[in-house]
């Protein structure tokens, strides 16, 4: 089923192209086409992941190739399910670009099937890893929302209306989008850390041992916790929320990649 991966990647590139065409021309028919392609890409991607599961014999979220691909998959379906609830103008363009970037990254990692290290042979693997990656997917959507907010705010503040003013929704809507994504992302992140800790106790005999990955996950968690807390108490919203969601997402990405490649530690399996 490995042949499905390039097809998935290609469909995402196609969907992004369609979304960019829509972004430029704002023709509703183009958006319908773009959505259709993204939906199809999501389905092909699902089949490809299931195929890989059958092929490798365990949930395919252990190698970097697999986990980034899963990350992109979660983001696609997160976005599509979101769209069903409520609509944010031109959000799809930003999300599809992000998904495509992730898929290209995933393609760059080795696609070889490596036998599962003994420590990962546990029922916790699909639970912990998929929750953590889904958290990343929602935080990534919050990141997109934050970028959109800053782009829109820059044009309103400078009184120079460029390509974004008309195309992006109101600041209020973008702030709500950001909050919405981060609320879900934060809950998943919390669950990811809890399940990780439970698994750590089972595998290594301790709930928490300040492994670099654990530390960075906690730093990320604190960033988002602070944002969500101060949103209510001190009005950390809008511009500040947008900036912090970008910082938080950078921390989340460092937890995913930076720690593995720069800091190492016992948690660094993927590579």
């Amino acid at each position: 089923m490995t042949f499905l991966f390039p097809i998935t990647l290609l469909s995402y590139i196609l969907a992004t192209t369609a979304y960019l065409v829509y972004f430029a021309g704002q023709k509703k028919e183009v958006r319908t086409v773009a959505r259709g392609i993204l939906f199809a890409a999501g389905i092909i991607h699902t089949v490809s992941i299931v195929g890989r599961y059958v092929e490798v014999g365990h949930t395919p979220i252990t190698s970097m190739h697999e986990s980034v691909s899963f990350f992109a998959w979660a983001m696609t379906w997160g976005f599509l399910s979101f769209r069903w609830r409520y609509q944010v103008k031109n959000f799809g363009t930003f999300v599809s670009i992000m998904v495509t970037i992730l898929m290209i990254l995933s393609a760059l990692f080795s696609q070889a099937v490596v036998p599962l290290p003994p420590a990962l042979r546990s029922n916790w693997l699909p639970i912990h890893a998929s929750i953590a990656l889904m958290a990343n997917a929602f935080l990534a959507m919050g990141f997109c929302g934050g970028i959109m907010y800053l782009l829109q705010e820059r044009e309103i503040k400078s009184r120079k209306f460029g390509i974004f003013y008309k195309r992006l929704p109101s600041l209020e809507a973008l702030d709500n989008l950001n909050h919405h994504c981060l609320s879900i992302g934060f809950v998943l992140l919390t669950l990811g850390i809890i399940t990780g800790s439970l698994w750590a106790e089972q595998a290594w005999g301790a709930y928490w041992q300040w492994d670099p990955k654990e530390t960075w996950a906690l730093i990320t968690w604190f960033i988002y916790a602070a944002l969500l807390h101060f949103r209510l108490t001190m009005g950390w919203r809008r511009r500040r929320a947008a900036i912090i969601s970008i910082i938080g997402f950078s921390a989340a990405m460092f937890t995913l990649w930076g720690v593995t490649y720069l800091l190492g530690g016992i948690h660094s399996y993927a590579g």
Partner: protein
Amino acid sequence: MQVDQIMIVGVNHKVAPVEVREKLAYTGDCAHPVIEIGKIPGCKECCFLGTCNRVEVIFSGVDSEETVKAVRKFLFSRSNLSDEEAKKYSYSYTGKDAVNHLFRVAASLDSMIVGEPQILGQLKGAYREAREHKSVSLILNKFINKSFTVAKRTRTETNIGGSAVSISYAAVQLAKKIFGKLDNKKVMIVGAGEMAELAAEHLIAQGISEVVVANRTLANAITLAERFNGSAVSLEELTAELESVDILISSTGATDLVLKKEDLKPLMRQRMESPLFLIDIAVPRDLDPKLNDLDNVYLYDIDNLKDVVDVNKSERQNEAGKAERIVEEETLKFMQWLDGMEVTPTIVEMRQKIDDIRQAEIDKTMAGLGELSSKQKRSIEAMAGAITNKILHNPILFLKSDTASVDQQMKLQIVREIFGMDSDS
């Protein structure tokens, strides 16, 4: 046989000054204009559109100079202008030009403010009245309804009505880009002035829930506040009041600044950083330009708003070009339909439709019958052909007959409707 033409005689803001336009026939006349126009010989169907910027008589009938002249005479009957002068202040279109004209009017390409949406509603009203007086039938029904779809198409496919072309409306659009929905928002008007009031009115129309008026003289503030059902405060209370305000419109005659950056800065924390949209319409300016440096504060002065409007106006001009092309295209399509409204094309079209049915049914039957000799096949085809010819015989005779008692258009309409020939739109 002479086919009926679509014609329009009209007056608009471009060809006649208001002194002339105000003396034209209008819908408030005791007998509705369509009744009077309907009496004009050579005029079969008619619709009367009267607005403050234009009066149009849309009618169909035999194309002749007398008919047009008679319609014009009716239009100008309340003024004492001669036909020569009336001709100068009006226009008349026939056929394709008339079609193009009404489509442009409906799409708001002929309006004083290009893209303003009221005209479509006015045209719909005129059409409804014409229907009530039964002064429209086949051709005008199709024509005027088509103009609605053309107008709708220009709105969905171009951005002709999209951007604000007045200062107060530009302010409303900006407010929406900042706050999303405007309900539950509080607006404060500082000072008085037509433009500030206009902007406030626009905002209230968009659902603003609360209005506060601040003025140097409290009495003036109270008067204005009453108009908007709001509260009044004195200028000294302004800063304190700002804690709960979302939009501030300032237009005092003061020579110095009413609000400075230092005044607002400490307030932003109390406001929980909720955004503040400041609109400064006053010259000299009321609001410190440095206010815009504060986070979540958006300051627009009159020049900024004018810039927005100018950009929008030029953009609207571009969009109007696109809309013109849609109108051109639709005019051609409609003319094709109109050409089909003659006897010969209708017969051809009817025959084609029945032949298609015949062929489809023969194919279906043949497929189910299995192997047939060529002789059997031929007789089935011959039978089907005979049935269709016999069915079509009388309708064709009916169309070709030249009885004076039945109107030609009526005959076409009946046949076309029975055979479902215009069902596509």
